[in-house]
């Protein structure tokens, strides 16, 4: 290293050692707003919670031997039922496909209009919204609440707090209750839960989900989004300058000032911004941020500040949309006198949409082509082949036949590829179909059997003949095959 350059020692920086390492929680009590986005949020809240709470009760006829619940996770038997679809454990890759789809849809939503998921659909947002509505219903709007802190009697305040927490706990309990209904026959389980005869694990899960719902939606709220959730961080990396976000149009709003002051300024011919600095947007925000500072991590983009501000603009007779879904780029363009751009179709969105179509298409195609039976085969390893006393050669295999129908079915088994093959099975029923052994597989079950293939034909040394086992439904005629090899010395 060259020591010639003289490094001047920097002055010791000053440390702000008094700065707090941890900050106290600032409780947020957002005001109620009215407007388009609030209505959309109410509608989505009703639809999503309605689906969640009521779906387990929807019936779906699958015939005998199968549950009649439209959506059911049957852990004991390892089955997942979704309307006409039945997923077996070995088909878990469908869940992978669903997760990939879900991720792509999130990316697309983000590319089009930012955190649509966070603002409108995320369970954390929806339940928090519901809990805040309950809070306002019992304790009143924030202003009323503040008044009460001073004026209301102690008894009334205790009574209100008790009412609020009771209602919260009831919603939370109902949430946990609905959760367990997805894992068992809903009407039966409801009855069992009320008569105290349900399995302990059901009560346990209800207790766990009651607790998490009550804590996360009642107490943690925006803390979950700001500190616990990884999605806001990922979003920041995914977004681009064309994505619509809840934006304060500072080109229009600044310089801000009180209503009277800006009226006076305007009358005097001095330009003045539309923002009257009433802070309604901050008061309406469920995460307590000031959107006028620009887009920020804590903003979940729920659009409620838009409604709050539009109401104010309406009152003061200025055009709505001071806060709106817009882009930072457009704000700048307007300042330069350029027309705003709205580019929804661009490489990013088209790519995401294309991928969604491809992945979705693959999933639909595989689901549609999925048969109602299956067979897999494993060759005996030890011994690979057996010489019998009459000199013939035999290979043994383990076959597993899958019957995905809810009726018992009989399958005829055949083998192809070995000259003069004799097929024998262990675990069949006495019946045969055109000389082929027949096995019976119970409804919605698998069945394992041993298949012995022998031949007295002369095979070449170290023979390894490709063979195909075919399994044919005796009544329906549906055939499935599985390949393997026939080994010789």
């Amino acid at each position, binding site marked *: 290293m060259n020591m010639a350059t003289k490094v001047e020692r920097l002055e010791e*920086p*000053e440390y702000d050692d008094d700065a707090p390492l941890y900050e106290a929680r600032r409780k947020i009590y957002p005001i109620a707003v009215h407007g388009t986005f609030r209505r959309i949020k109410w509608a989505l809240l009703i639809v999503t919670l309605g689906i969640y709470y009521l779906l387990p009760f929807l019936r779906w006829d699958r015939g005998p031997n199968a549950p009649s619940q439209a959506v059911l996770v049957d852990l004991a038997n390892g089955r997942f039922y979704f309307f006409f679809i039945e997923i077996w454990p070995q088909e878990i890759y469908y869940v992978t496909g669903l997760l990939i789809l879900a991720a792509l849809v999130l990316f697309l939503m983000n590319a089009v209009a930012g955190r649509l998921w966070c603002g409108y659909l995320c369970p954390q947002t929806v339940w928090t919204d519901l809990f805040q509505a309950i809070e306002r219903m019992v304790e009143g709007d924030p202003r009323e609440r503040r008044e009460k802190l001073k004026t209301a009697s102690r008894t009334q305040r205790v009574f209100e707090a008790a009412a609020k927490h009771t209602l919260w706990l009831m919603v939370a309990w109902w949430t946990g209750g609905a959760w367990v209904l997805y894992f068992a026959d809903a009407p039966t389980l409801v009855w069992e839960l009320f008569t105290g005869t349900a399995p302990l694990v059901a009560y346990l899960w209800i207790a766990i989900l009651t607790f998490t719902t009550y804590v996360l939606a009642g107490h943690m709220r925006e803390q979950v989004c700001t500190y616990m959730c990884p999605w806001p961080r990922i979003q920041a990396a995914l977004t681009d300058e064309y994505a619509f976000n809840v934006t304060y149009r500072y080109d229009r709003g600044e310089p801000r000032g009180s209503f009277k002051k800006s009226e006076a300024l305007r009358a005097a011919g001095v330009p003045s911004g539309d923002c009257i600095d009433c802070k309604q947007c901050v008061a309406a925000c469920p995460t307590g941020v000031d959107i006028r500072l620009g887009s920020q991590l804590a903003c979940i983009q729920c659009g409620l500040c838009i409604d709050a501000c539009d109401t104010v603009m309406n009152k003061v007779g200025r055009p709505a949309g001071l806060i709106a879904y817009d882009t930072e780029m457009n704000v700048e363009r307007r300042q330069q006198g350029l027309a705003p751009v709205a580019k929804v179709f661009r490489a990013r969105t088209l790519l995401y949409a294309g991928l969604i179509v491809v992945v979705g298409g693959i999933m639909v195609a595989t689901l549609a082509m999925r048969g109602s039976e299956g067979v897999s085969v494993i060759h005996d*390893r*030890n*011994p690979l082949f*057996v*010489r019998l*006393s009459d000199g013939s050669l035999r290979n043994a295999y383990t076959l597993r036949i899958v019957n995905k129908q809810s009726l018992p079915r009989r399958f005829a088994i055949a083998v192809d590829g070995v000259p003069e093959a004799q097929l024998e099975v262990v675990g069949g029923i006495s019946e045969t179909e055109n000389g082929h052994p027949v096995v019976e597989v119970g409804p919605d079950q698998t069945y394992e059997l041993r298949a012995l293939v022998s031949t007295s034909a002369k095979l070449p040394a170290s023979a390894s003949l490709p063979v195909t086992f075919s399994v044919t439904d005796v009544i329906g005629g549906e055939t499935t095959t599985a390949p393997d090899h026939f080994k010789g010395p």
Partner: protein
Amino acid sequence: MAEHQKNVDAVTGVSTTGHEWDGIRELNNPLPRWWLWTFYACIVWAVVYWIAYPAWPLVSGYTSGVLGWKSRDAIEVQLADLRTQRGAFAQKLQDASLAEIEASPELLSFARAQGRAAFGDNCAPCHGTGAAGSVGYPNLNDDDWMWGGSLEQIQQTLLHGIRSTDADAHVGDMPAFGRDAMLPRPEIVAAADYVRSLSNLPVPAGVTPDLAKGKEVFEANCAACHGADGKGNIELGAPNLTDGIWLYGSGRDAVIASITNGRAGIMPAWGGRLDPTTIKALTVYVHALGGGK
């Protein structure tokens, strides 16, 4: 510090800690206090856990925890659950005859599964995990049985063994014709060549077998047990010599060695060691390997 300068970052408007590296200053975005409390709660939890559960390794052992929890006990509970679950089927298996088990696909599946496990634990050391056997230990997949391959015969062999200490064990006696000077070496060689010819085994180069003499020796000494046609006798455990399946090897030297020194393989009696249901399951499993008669 008397004069406290407030460090505020111009771009973000966030105060900084004052820490600076090459001009990069650390913003102070304090964590929420509940985060801190979560840390404390975790520490408390860890301490409670140490006290309640086995945790600390000691010189010769470990702290066992006040709850007295042991992973061994947890397994015992699971095993007990398994036994109750199996109970119904085990009862059926116990009540059904061997033939009934083979006739019912359901019972057969259960018996074979149980049999496979028992085979792996008890029989695999000699017969191999797939029952392929090796020299001196028969392959149970083929259809060549010294003591019979029907369900009852297999069960009998399993229960009492072969040349075991059991009173009802199978006992066969292959004499040591050479060692005990019952036959001279040339006659033994001739007999060996003859029995190999019964299985159509290839004659090694340079050897001219005297089949006529061999046949003579065979009829005088071996046919009593192995039969005039050499097809063996399961009553005596005398193997079939015509089928190309040779327990001790089919090479000329191996066959000469068998005749010279005799053979007396041993299989233990499992009757006293395994319960009757397990023996049943093993019987069905071996029978269903493919060679059962």
